């Protein structure tokens, strides 16, 4: 794997993790506000 390929893979991973965490942050906030629980349901 070339250096450029490695960088692209890392970038894609960063994007996926950011997308998941963004949704999760909103869900955590909603659960906090609405009396639910963060890990009580679907992870996403």
């Amino acid at each position, binding site marked *: 794997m070339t250096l450029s390929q490695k960088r692209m893979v890392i970038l894609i991973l960063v994007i996926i993790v950011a997308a998941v965490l963004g949704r999760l942050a909103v869900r955590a906030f909603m659960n906090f506000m609405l*009396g639910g629980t963060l890990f009580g349901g679907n992870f996403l």
Partner: protein
Amino acid sequence: MKNEGKGRKKVMWGFIYVGAFILVFAASAIIKMTYNPLSGEMQVHWNDTVGHVYSDMAYDDKEQNKFDLYVPADNTKKNYGLVVYLHAGGFSTGDKSDDANMLKWLTSKGYVAAGINYTLRNENNPEASVYTMSQEIKKSIPVVKAEAEKLGYNLDRMAISGGSAGGTLALLYAYRDADTSPIPVKMVFEMVGPPSFYPEDWVTYGLDQNPEAAANLFSVMSGNTITTDMIGTASYDEAIKDISPFMWIDNNSVPTLAAYGKYDKVAPFGTVKHLINALEKNNVPHDYIEFPHSGHGLQNDNKLYLKYIEKLNEYLERYMGRE
């Protein structure tokens, strides 16, 4: 020179990673916040061809004894079904205007819809209880009927509904007061309204461990004096009966559509079993939709929310008739 260039590239890629993370994190959060998979289901383009709203009609003397009446534009029918929707807010906040979209949606289906306020418990109204609120709702229905008739809409059947606190009040009217209703009650639908008031079920408030707090809270809610030694006895049941919808269920109770979140900490999920058991025991036609991943906001089970709306349409058609 070569190393310097490599270093610069590393730093640049570091910035790219951090920038991409921040950008995607923010975008993902915004999409999650703004995207509402249910928005199309109950959205109505409200205008004069759909219906009219008559706001703040009084049904009694107190400041909050007001209702909004939504009537369909088509006033040519002989009879209409009324759907009452009671607002949420923990018996201490909220307003009928919070449910404008729901009321407009019901009107667009051809029903007359009413959002009714009730005197909330707060520093201005320290005597207000769930019982007094339920009595105000009871008092309002004949006035809603009379005002609708004045406008040319004869009401010959009704459904009552609500969310959270409004859900409890809707259940109370449906099971406790339907017999004396001036309009025959055909069904009730509600979400997350606490249907029972036993301390052992109110664990999220610690009432299972604190009889004194339970006695105080349920005294306030019922408007009756409850002491700790009454808990677990017949006199306790008697004291909370007037605010406990499930206690009024019998073989003649109206069809019920109810939804609750398994992780509800506001209207504790433990209270729900009494309602469902009573409906089952008395063979009352009902549908109970449990949201397994949600709390009080029913916020994490969109597919089940859609199922609830689907069921609601079925119930309205079956029990209220197609308008």
